[in-house]
């Protein structure tokens, strides 16, 4: 077990920077997820941690040891690859035993530990099979088995469950989280799926264009995004954005849109600071922070027209057309509105966000 410090790390491919001045500290024993769309530099970061890519600039430390110049084999990390990377010509047993055998560990111990790992992952009955005789989920368990069998300092998981079907993925999320809690080993888990990151990680590092956007707990990332990009990337269905202007109306400061004028809460006025008065901002509100009704409610409401309803079992998503844009609302399946009918939206102002229209940083 070890803590991981990534200090001012850059990665260049030729002239193109893939990772820009990255700073992350993963506490010992934590489950850290690096989240971002493809091409954001998350895999490069992981490969630098594993030693499969050189670090262009900066340092990576495991505890206090600088590991920049260590070969992968000397870093004592275990990695699970997106495509499993099992050895096709070896049995499941030999696959899992491989890291131990490379370390010349006594064969009786190897047998013991492989069996223990296989039992933990419920693949003990598959030990004599070859990888091509396994299903995707089983292959993935073998790959995890190969990682956990030797109790490394650090686990690196590179989108390990991206290729599984949705149901199995949901199941494996729980399994991997439980496994990490049981073993207590520091884990860095790269994914593009925000649901995986939110559901499993202790801390999430959101990356975009090679830069760290935000570091925080899943709830911080979800509830207090630092900029519009993070707010839009995290959360499913995605956050609604509306371009508004900030203006004064009597004693209130309001967000004005073509369709509506909604006053800010008292505390929010100070956060938005005077300079943006009169300027354009982007209002962000998640579908579940909006409520929809067919009658006009008393307080400030947004008027729109139902565009389409999507029933998702336990929830219903309603797309509402405002004059020039569309917003999504999450409501209960009992909602009776039909497409084309007028409706009214109320914003939960405790849960809305205002972002700068230029650089996208969050005022709140």
């Amino acid at each position: 077990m070890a803590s991981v410090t990534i200090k001012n790390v850059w990665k260049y491919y030729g002239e193109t920077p893939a990772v820009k001045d990255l700073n992350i500290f993963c506490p010992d024993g934590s489950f850290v997820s690096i989240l971002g769309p493809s091409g954001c530099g998350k895999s490069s970061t992981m490969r630098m941690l594993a030693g499969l890519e050189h670090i262009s600039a900066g340092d990576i430390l495991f505890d206090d040891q600088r590991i920049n110049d260590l070969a992968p084999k000397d870093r004592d990390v275990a990695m699970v690859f997106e495509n499993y990377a099992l050895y096709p010509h070896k049995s499941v047993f030999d696959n899992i035993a491989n890291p131990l055998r490379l370390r010349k560990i006594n064969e009786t111990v190897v047998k013991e530990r492989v069996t223990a790992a296989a039992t933990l992952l419920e693949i003990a009955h598959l030990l004599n099979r070859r990888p091509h005789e396994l299903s995707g989920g089983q292959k993935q368990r073998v790959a995890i088995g190969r990682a956990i069998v030797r109790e490394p300092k650090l686990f690196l998981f590179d989108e390990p469950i991206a290729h599984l079907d949705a149901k199995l993925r949901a199941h494996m999320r729980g399994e991997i989280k439980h496994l990490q809690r049981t073993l207590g080993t520091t884990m860095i888990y790269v994914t593009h799926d925000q649901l995986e990151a939110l559901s499993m990680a202790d801390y999430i590092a959101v990356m975009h264009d090679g830069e760290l956007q935000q570091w925080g707990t899943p709830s911080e990332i979800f509830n207090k995004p630092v900029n519009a990009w993070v707010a839009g990337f995290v959360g499913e269905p995605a956050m609604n954005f509306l371009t508004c202007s900030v203006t004064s109306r009597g004693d209130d400061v309001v967000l004005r849109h073509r369709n509506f004028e909604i006053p800010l809460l008292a505390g929010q006025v100070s956060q938005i600071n005077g300079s943006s008065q009169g300027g354009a901002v982007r209002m962000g509100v998640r579908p579940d922070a909006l409520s929809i009704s067919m009658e006009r409610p008393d307080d400030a409401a947004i008027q729109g027209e139902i565009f389409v309803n999507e029933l998702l079992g336990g929830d219903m998503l309603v797309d509402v057309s405002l004059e020039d844009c569309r917003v999504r609302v999450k409501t209960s399946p009992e909602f009776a509105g039909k497409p084309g009918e007028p409706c009214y939206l109320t914003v939960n102002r405790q849960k809305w966000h205002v972002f700068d229209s230029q650089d996208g940083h969050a005022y709140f």
Partner: protein
Amino acid sequence: MASRDVVSYETPFTRIARYASIVFVVLYLVWTLLPFLVMFMSSFKDLLEAFKLPAVGDWSGIGIFFEFTPTLKHYRSLFVDNSFATYIANSLIAAGGSAVISVIFGSLAAYSLSRVDFRGKQDLFFWIISTRMAPVVAVMVPLYSIFRSLDLVGTLPGLILAYTTFNLPFAIWILKGFFDNVPFAIEEAQMVDGATRFQAFRSILPLVAPGIGAFVVLCILFAWNDFLFAAIIGSGGAKTLPVATRELVQPQNIQWGAIMAAGVVTTLPMMALGLVIRKYLVTGLTMGAVKE
């Protein structure tokens, strides 16, 4: 890569085509197998019997061909009067030695060309295969001169070196394709698991085994069947089977029986090799080309 049943429907044309293809296959079999049959039979015949042939068009007289008293005297003459055992050993050492050396250096070079990016890689690779483009005859004289000044003419190491010169580019070319099809992630997993780069390279060798197998066969066939190098560079001390067979043709006496027996002795090991790795060879030659 499994072949699939293709639905086909009978038309007059396909019926004719089917019969035509059967006729073609039969003719092709006769064309390819008859020389071997004649060679094999003649090697067990006395010279007089061997030349007893029915007249052209006399199909009833074909029995004459099979009427003979088997004799091993031609084989005796090869192994007792001549030292064909030595020539077989020379052929085996030259072909096997060059195959082993080519596989070792070829797989190392192919792996590097497949995995490592460096400046001028494409040019280097082209240069390596371009060495195969010059006809052997064109380089024979300079090569002979070089080999003579190194005292390699007439020695087995010289012959092995000559074959390797021509087999190695071929090995690199074939094996690079096979390495290209092995996912990087497998070696990377090995290295993270605790392997050195060289151990990681060794660990993926089983995945290119079909390529290595195919190459070894082609390499051995090239050396085994070669006459030119063997006659010029190997002449004297490193006489191989084709050269020794050629020497059975003497100005005053062509030893047909012994030549037939030498042909059998030369052919059988390669046939055996082909049978043993037939399956390997076919998958090997196609597997590199098809991405899974």
